[in-house]
């Protein structure tokens, strides 16, 4: 069972979780974007490997989208936006890096326990992939919750979405994967355009409860 194909898929999916952890401790926006590009690159490799392993050529499309759009275009555009809008370049965290990392480890353990237990019958490749994918999704959520800047929250969302693409490609023979990854790319494109149009500079509340009070419509 543990053939080379399985091992490589396992390694790539595992690397994605590791890169998610790297996203957790970045404290500069540029570095965060670079790590995100790496994240998307690892995803592209992983998807391409799944395409090869499952003999599913349409997954190469998803891999190409991940490589071109997420690993190259989006980081470059966000990079330029940070310059143009004069966004503060430090990542402001709600919780310190140390506790965040500990929380992240807890989340990965949680997803392993949950997914490995409920998928005991499933194909081992899909099973491992799914457990890693859920870890990436939860880590993405953690990034969104613990960051204040809009840009770093968006990076958290995009890494979350990478986890979903990993899960979708890991599920053998799943239809509509390409369509779904396109739909997600559209969503991300909108978010990125949104940052620019809405001129969201630093901490435009979203999930930051400290800034939320301002425009509740209740306080004026």
């Amino acid at each position, binding site marked *: 069972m543990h053939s080379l194909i399985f091992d490589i898929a396992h390694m790539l999916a595992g690397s994605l979780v590791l890169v998610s952890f790297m996203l957790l401790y970045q404290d500069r926006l540029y570095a965060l974007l670079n790590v995100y590009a790496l994240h998307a690159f690892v995803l592209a490799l992983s998807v391409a490997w799944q395409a090869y392993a499952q003999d599913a050529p349409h997954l190469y499309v998803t891999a190409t989208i991940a490589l071109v759009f997420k690993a190259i275009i989006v980081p470059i555009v966000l990079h330029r936006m940070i310059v143009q809008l004069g966004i503060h370049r430090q990542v402001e965290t709600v919780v310190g890096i140390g506790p965040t990392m500990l929380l992240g480890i807890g989340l990965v353990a949680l997803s392993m326990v949950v997914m490995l237990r409920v998928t005991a019958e499933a194909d081992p490749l899909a099973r491992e992939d799914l457990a890693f994918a859920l870890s990436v999704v939860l880590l993405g959520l953690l990034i969104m919750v613990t960051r204040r800047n809009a840009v770093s929250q968006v990076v958290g969302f995009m890494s979350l979405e990478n986890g979903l693409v990993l899960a979708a490609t890991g599920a053998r023979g799943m239809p509509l994967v390409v369509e*779904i990854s396109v739909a997600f790319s559209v969503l991300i494109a909108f978010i990125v355009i949104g940052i620019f149009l809405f001129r969201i500079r630093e901490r435009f509340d979203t999930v930051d409860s400290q800034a939320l009070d301002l425009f509740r419509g209740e306080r004026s």
Partner: protein
Amino acid sequence: MTFNAVTAVLVIPALAALVLAVLPNYRLTAYLNVAAALLTFLAALSLFFYGRPLPSAYFLVDDLNNVFIVLTTFVGFTTSVFSASYIGHELETGRLTPTALRFYHAMYQVLMFAMNLALVTNNIGVMWVAIELATLTTVMMVGIYRTHEALEAAWKYFILGSVGIALALFGTILVYLAAQPVIGQGLDSMVWTELVAHAGAFEPALLNVAFVFLLLGYGTKVGLVPLHAWLPDAHAEGPTPISAVLSGLLLNVALYALLRFKILLAANPNAFAPGPLMISMGLVSLLFAALMLYRRRDIKRLFAYSSIEHMGIVAFAFGMGGPLANFAGLLHMTMHSLTKSAIFFAVGSIAQVKGTQKIADMGGLTETNPVLGWGLVLGVVAIAGLPPLGLFMSEFLVVSSTFAREPLLALPLVLGLLIGIGALFLCLNSIAFGEPRGGTAKAKGSYVPMFAHLALVLVAGIYLPGPLVAWFQNVAKLLG
């Protein structure tokens, strides 16, 4: 694919969106918008009378979604009528530019398309894509005024909605994974009718986890507490017709997606019962929203919280399950859609008359604008669930079916309802009666859609036609 009513409810809005996007004249586009919505409604209505197409790998029309389709297209149509009379005023006051208005009409049809697609599709993957599309279009419409508050509301809705959508996708993937060993790889494992037919053989643990993700994901869009944070802002800051569509329709569509998966879980004897989860989220939403109704300062925000309250009741009823509670839930959802959109039509006109959305700056509406004022009074009486209007009947059914089966659960339910009534009447008192405050201009918006909705709600409260009752009972049985 042959041409039939299902294709029509998808093709008409899609084509209309394209046409509206290129036409410059806003009066013309407003009328075209109404015409397209009317045609879509007629096509949906024909599903009732001329039979339905057989389920295919992509489309499915059964008793359950037929109710939703007709309701969606009907409210879509009346809202377009209201919007046509309302939106010109926004142009005059300079809140919207002609370009923004063109964009608004095109987006309205895209939203109709997305909601119809989510309702008629038989494929859980397509359903997800459609709900994502509906989210994106509403995000853009919420932010259309481009004020700081509107943009912030849109952004918040966007981020929370995206996270919800992402979780729902994860749940969808898990459902596929549960189906794949039984049905086999490929498209069939995402077709809902196939899934239900084979659900008994699925791995129950996987289905359970999938449902939790789906509940969190689509529950965000339903606006269930604690995932509701986007809802009041999105309702308060967007154009009023959009608030009506959001409350009256989009919440329903997300709930419909949840119901589909609930049926799937019920078809597997070893999976856990999703009822208790929905009951507790419903009750929490009801109580929380009922308390939040007090001391609201913005009128649209007030009714947004009331939507959370009612979606809580509906989720509670469907969570209880059984023929009576499901019937009540379905009826309540229908009545709420009609009443809440009518209230938002009234609120839109009131905000134009008074020039503000602040409750403190409104007063004596029944004196300054009697028709509008009494319309609002009627709407609030309906939404509070007083007899003889339709919501009284559905709430009564929910409460009585709960008393019959779980008397203890009925207590918080009734408590929540009473708290909500108190808040609504306090607020109504200050807006509709007493010393006139605020502007006294004549309202530009048409009253016809509002009173049409309220008349339907009143009729439904007094007499429900036999075929409709039989229809709803059939759906209630389907829901299990």
